[in-house]
C-alpha cells in the first residue's frame, strides 16, 4: 500500500470540481481531500474537507498545509466578459498565486487544468490534429482562450523551474456529463439548437468522467508536461443532434446579436463568445500522449459515443463495428467499382497487386478481402481463396489498435494478430491502423497503403456511417 495522499482541489464546486471530488474519494490511497471554492460545496464526503477560499488570497497557502498534491481547477469559464478585470485576476493572478503557494507549502505534485483553447482558434489548425508541442497562442479576442494560454505558458515555466515538483498540464476539450454540467438540460428536448452560417468546425466532446479520470491518472502517476484530453472523431455541432436522437434546430447567425443583448441584460449567463466558437477555426487535437503515457482509456472514446451516452442512446454499431465499417467500404466498392482514392494515392498503389484476407473473430465474426489492382483498391465480402495473405484477429483487438491503445508490434508479438501467407501483404493491417492514426502527415512510398486506408477509414468509419 503506497503512502496515503492528501490532495487539495481548487474550483472544487465547479463543473469539473464536483466530478473530480467523486473520483478522488474512490481512490484508496487518498485519505483526505481539501476542497477549495468561493461557493459552498455541492456534496459532502467523509474524506472531503470543504473550505470557502479564494485563489487570489495571499494567505491561500494555509489551506494546503499537510497536502502533498494540488489539482488546480479554479477558473472563470462562462461569464468572463462581464467583468474582464475580475476574470483576469482569478484566471491568471489566481492561478499564479495558488500554484506558488502550493509549492511553498511543499506539495510534490501539481495538476493544472489548461484547455485545448490554449492553442487558440487559428487557420493553421486545419492541417491536422494538434499535438502537445503545438504553439500556445490563445486568441486575444476571447478571454477564455487568452487566459488559458497565459496560464498554460506560466505553469510550463513553473514546472521547469521546480524539477522536484511533478507539474502536469491537462488540456481537455469541451466536456459534458450529467453531474457537472447543467447545460445538458436543453439536450433532453426534441430540438437541438445550433447557430448556422459559420464554418461548423469539428468539435471534440469528452465525457466528464473521462476528464476526471485523466486528472486522477496524472496525479497518481505524478506525470510531467502537457497532455491533450479529448475524444477521437470530433463532430461538427450540426451533426450532434442526430447522435442524440434529436432534430437539429438551426438558428441564424444574426440571432447572435440578440444573444449579445440578452447577455448584457443578464437574461442569459453565457458569454456570447462561446456561441461564436462554432464560427471560429477548429481546434482538433490528438490525445495519443495521454493514452500512451497516462494509460488514459476513455470509457466514451468518441464524440459520438459521448453524445449518445448523454442522450441515453447506446451505439447501435458498438457490438458489430467491423461489420458496419467494412460493410460500408464493401458497399462503396460495389456501387463505385472501387474505393475513392485521390490521384497521388492511385499512383502509389500501382505498386501493389493481389488481395489480402481479413477475418474478425468474436461474437460477431466477419470475413473480408481487400483487393489491389492497377492503382485501385476495394473491399469485398468473404474470403478470397487465392489471396496472398490472411490476417485474423478479434474484433476488439482491431478497435484497440485503431484507438492507439495497443501497438501493432505488441499485437503481433503477443499473437493477438495472426498472419498466414506473404508477410508484406499481411502488413496491410498495420497499414490500416497506421493510416488511421497518421493519415494526415504520412509521406513516402512505404506509407502509401496506410495513407489511403487512413483516408478511407476516417471518412467512412463506424461513427459516421451510422450517424449520417
Amino acid at each position, binding site marked *: 500500500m503506497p503512502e496515503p495522499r492528501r490532495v487539495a482541489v481548487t474550483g472544487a464546486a465547479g463543473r469539473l470540481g464536483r466530478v473530480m471530488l467523486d473520483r478522488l474519494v474512490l481512490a484508496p490511497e487518498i485519505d483526505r481531500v481539501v476542497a477549495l471554492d468561493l461557493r459552498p460545496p455541492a456534496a459532502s464526503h467523509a474524506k472531503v474537507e470543504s473550505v470557502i477560499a479564494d485563489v487570489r488570497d495571499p494567505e491561500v497557502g494555509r489551506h494546503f498545509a499537510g497536502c502533498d498534491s494540488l489539482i488546480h481547477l479554479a477558473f472563470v469559464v462562462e461569464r468572463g466578459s462581464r467583468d474582464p478585470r475580475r476574470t483576469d485576476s482569478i484566471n491568471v493572478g489566481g492561478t499564479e498565486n495558488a500554484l506558488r503557494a502550493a509549492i511553498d507549502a511543499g506539495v510534490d505534485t501539481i495538476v493544472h487544468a489548461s484547455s485545448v483553447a490554449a492553442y487558440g482558434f487559428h487557420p493553421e489548425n486545419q492541417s491536422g490534429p494538434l499535438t502537445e508541442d503545438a504553439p500556445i497562442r490563445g486568441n486575444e479576442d476571447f478571454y477564455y482562450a487568452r487566459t488559458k494560454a497565459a496560464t498554460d505558458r506560466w505553469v510550463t515555466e513553473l514546472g521547469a523551474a521546480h524539477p522536484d515538483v511533478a507539474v502536469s498540464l491537462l488540456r481537455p476539450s469541451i466536456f459534458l456529463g450529467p453531474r457537472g454540467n447543467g447545460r445538458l438540460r436543453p439536450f433532453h428536448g426534441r430540438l437541438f439548437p445550433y447557430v448556422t452560417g459559420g464554418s461548423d468546425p469539428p468539435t471534440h466532446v469528452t465525457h466528464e468522467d473521462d476528464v476526471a479520470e485523466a486528472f486522477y491518472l496524472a496525479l497518481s502517476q505524478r506525470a510531467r508536461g502537457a497532455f491533450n484530453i479529448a475524444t477521437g472523431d470530433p463532430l461538427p455541432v450540426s451533426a450532434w443532434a442526430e447522435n442524440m436522437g434529436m432534430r437539429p434546430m438551426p438558428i441564424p447567425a444574426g440571432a447572435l446579436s440578440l444573444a449579445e443583448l440578452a447577455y448584457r441584460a443578464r437574461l442569459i449567463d453565457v458569454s456570447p463568445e462561446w456561441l461564436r466558437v462554432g464560427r471560429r477555426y477548429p481546434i482538433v487535437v490528438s490525445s495519443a500522449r495521454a493514452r500512451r503515457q497516462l494509460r488514459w482509456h476513455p470509457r466514451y472514446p468518441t464524440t459520438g459515443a459521448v453524445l449518445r451516452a448523454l442522450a441515453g442512446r447506446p451505439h447501435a454499431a458498438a457490438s458489430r463495428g467491423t461489420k458496419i465499417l467494412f460493410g460500408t467500404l464493401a458497399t462503396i466498392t460495389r456501387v463505385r467499382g472501387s474505393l475513392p482514392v485521390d490521384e497521388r494515392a492511385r499512383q502509389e498503389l500501382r505498386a501493389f497487386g493481389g488481395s489480402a484476407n481479413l477475418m474478425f473473430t468474436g461474437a460477431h465474426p466477419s470475413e473480408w478481402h481487400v483487393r489491389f489492382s492497377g492503382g485501385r483498391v476495394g473491399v469485398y465480402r468473404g474470403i478470397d481463396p487465392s489471396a496472398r495473405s490472411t490476417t485474423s484477429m478479434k474484433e476488439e483487438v482491431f478497435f484497440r489498435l485503431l484507438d492507439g491503445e495497443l501497438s501493432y*508490434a505488441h499485437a503481433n*508479438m*503477443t*499473437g493477438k494478430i495472426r498472419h498466414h501467407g506473404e*508477410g508484406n501483404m499481411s502488413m496491410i493491417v498495420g497499414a490500416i491502423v497506421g493510416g488511421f492514426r497518421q493519415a494526415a502527415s504520412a509521406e513516402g512510398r512505404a*506509407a502509401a497503403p*496506410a495513407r489511403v486506408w487512413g483516408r478511407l477509414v476516417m471518412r467512412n468509419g463506424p461513427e459516421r456511417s451510422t450517424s449520417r
Partner: protein
Amino acid sequence: MKFSLFYEMQISHPTRPSETQLFHDCVTQVELADQLGYHCIWEVEHHGLFEYSHSSAPEVFLSFVAARTKNVRVGHGITLTPHRYNHPIRIAERIATLDILSGGRVNWGSGKSSSLTEQLAFENDVSQLHAQWLEALDMIPRMWQQDVFQYKGTFFDVPPIQVIPKPVQQPHPPIFAACSKPESAVAVGQLGIGALNFAIGNDDYLGRKVDDYRAAVRDANPAIYQKNDHFACTPVTLCLPDDRKACRYGMRGALFFAEALGTYYFSGKRPIGPLEEINREFMRDDDLDDAMAFRGADDAPAMNIIGDPAHCREIVSRFERAGVDEIICVMQTGTVPHELVMESLRTFGEQVIPHFSTDTTMERRAADPG
C-alpha cells in the same frame, strides 16, 4: 549457420553520460563475443535517429573493435553509399585500411538509407538515391582491384587516380546489401551480392524469399566483383537461463526496437526529441504469458529469438530450415541493460551456437587465404 551481432547502438532516454557509457559497454560486449566465437560484428550507419541508433561513425567504432579483438569479423551493415553521405573513393579507402589493420576481417554492406530524417538532413534528392547506390557499387570494387581507377558515370566523372591502399582480402572484402521486401531480395540476388534481410515474416514467407534470392544469385554473373551467395537475417535476440526473465526484458527490447523503427521509417515524420508513443515498459503479465506461448505457435513468424536456450534453439532451427546462412542477433536494444546483454551473449554462445554446424562459404575462404 553463422551467428553474429548487430549494433544499432540504441539507447532509451539518453543523457550525455549514459550515451558515453553505451559506447564503452558495446566494446566490452564485442570483446566477449570475440572470445565466444561469434562470427561478425555488424555495425549500422545512421544519422540523427535519436534513441533508435546512435551509430553514426561505424568506421571509427569498427576500427576500435578490430584492434581489441582477434577473430571476429567487422562488418558494415551498412555503409550509406549515396555520395552526400560518403564519397565512393573515401569508402574504398576506409574499407581497405580497415581490412589491412584487421587482418582481412572486413565484411562490407552497402545501401542507400530510407529514413526521411537522414535523407533530408544531407539534402539528398531522394529519387536519385537508388541510382547513386548502384553507381557506388559499380565504382568501389574497381577501386579495390585496379591500380589506376578512372570512371565516367551518371554522377561521377573521375580522372585517373590511384586509389590506395588496397584491401588484403582477395579479390576484395565480401560485398552485401540491405534488403527487406521480396523484390529487393531478388534484386540483391541479381547483383550477385549477399543479402542482409532486415524484415520479418512467417517461415513459409521467409523460406520463399530465400529461395527467390538463391535462384537470382545463381544466375548472377557480376563482372567487376566476386559473387557472394549469402542470406542473413537480423532478429532481436535475448537468451538467458531463466525463460521468463529473458522474455520480460527481451520482449520489451523488441517492442522498443520495432516501435522506434516504425516511428522513423513508417510514420512519414522526422521526429525531434525523445520518441513519443514508444513502449519502454515491461509487458503486463497476461500479455507476457501470451507472447511467450505464441513463440511456439505454428503460425508464429520467425522473428525474435527470445527465451531460454531451449526456446532459442527451436527458433534458430526455423531460420535454418528456411535456408538462412547467418543470424545477426540484435541483442543490444534500447531498453536491455548491458549486464543482461553480457549474460545473453554468454548463454547464447555456450548453449545455442554449438548446436548448429557452421558451414564454409566463400566469405570464410576469402578471409582465410591459403
